[in-house]
């Protein structure tokens, strides 16, 4: 499992500079991916760009954060079979990512 995390992280790390300033978390619930973001100060970003990548690093979609620092999108199990990487940028070098592993997706699907 750690090897899988490391493999997926290689794709994400290239764009995850200054990751300490923004925290991104994502999970699957009821066949929907829910992305949550928060600055390390505890404040919630009110805008930002969200990129969804497949396990091979291909960008699947680009979304905008809602004003509550979240975004949701439907899970496509066919595309997500190798995991998803969620990259979020709120500007000024505030970037972070979360990797949804196949296990994360399986555990959350249908919940």
């Amino acid at each position: 499992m750690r090897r899988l995390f490391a493999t997926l992280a290689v794709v994400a790390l290239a764009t995850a500079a200054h990751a300490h300033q923004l925290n991104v978390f994502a999970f699957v619930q009821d066949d929907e991916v829910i992305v949550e973001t928060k600055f390390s100060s505890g404040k919630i970003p009110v805008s930002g760009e969200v990129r969804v990548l497949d396990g091979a690093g291909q960008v699947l979609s680009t979304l905008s954060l809602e004003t509550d620092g979240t975004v949701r999108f439907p899970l496509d199990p066919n595309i997500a079979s190798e995991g998803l990487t969620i990259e979020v940028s709120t500007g000024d070098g505030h970037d972070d990512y979360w990797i949804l592993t196949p296990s994360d997706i399986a555990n959350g699907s249908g919940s």
Partner: protein
Amino acid sequence: MKTVFPTALALATLTGSPALAHYGMIIPDDAMVSQEDGRSVGLTLSFSHPFERDGMVLEEPVSFTVTHEGETTDLLGDLNSAEVMGQPGYTLDYPLARPGTYVFAMEPQPYWEPAEDSYITHYTKTYVSAFGDDEGWDTELGLRTEIVPLSKPFGLWEGNVFQGMVMLEGEAVPYAEVEVEYYNEDGDAEVPSDLMITQTIKADANGVFTYATPTDGWWGFGALNTAPETLDYEGEEKEIELGAVIWVHFEEWDD
């Protein structure tokens, strides 16, 4: 652990003279779990002399809980029996569902210590950060006695100071005595004097204490007080030492 003190721990052990400090212990396998580390944290519970790696029996605790985002969950039934430092203890692999700080806390059964002619109850806790989120690092659990961290109890460099406030029955304890001991996990650390196995400091008038660690690893801080009540031991009423113990990990400075 980089520093090896020149010393006579072996001699001290042979003479049987050191005043060994007891510590309730909750040692996570990672104090700051990143998403690349996985989705769980391993915990080892024991009652031990951490520097000497000398275990004692840890009976099934009265309680073992985790507190996250203001919610406390009972984990007592999830503990697995294990041998820790040669004595019965417990382990648990706890799944981390969300980011934030998870505070694990144990209230053990009173331990009868004949050498001290008293019972010992160490309310023991440790803080684990999950997925880069430190929210909740200063959580006060409201234990009968506890050390409330004033320094973030993870993400500290070796040499940093750790500050905490000693609380007993909801009140700060002026000039509380705090014992500090290193978990000599790999057995490499040695001491030049028995006096340095457990270092003792005092809190200030507000119950706040400060300690700077000389090296990386797990450090235990135990604030000791005596309970107003007593417990029976073979027909005699005995004192109960109440310990507020917190385990804090300091990271190696690697430049």
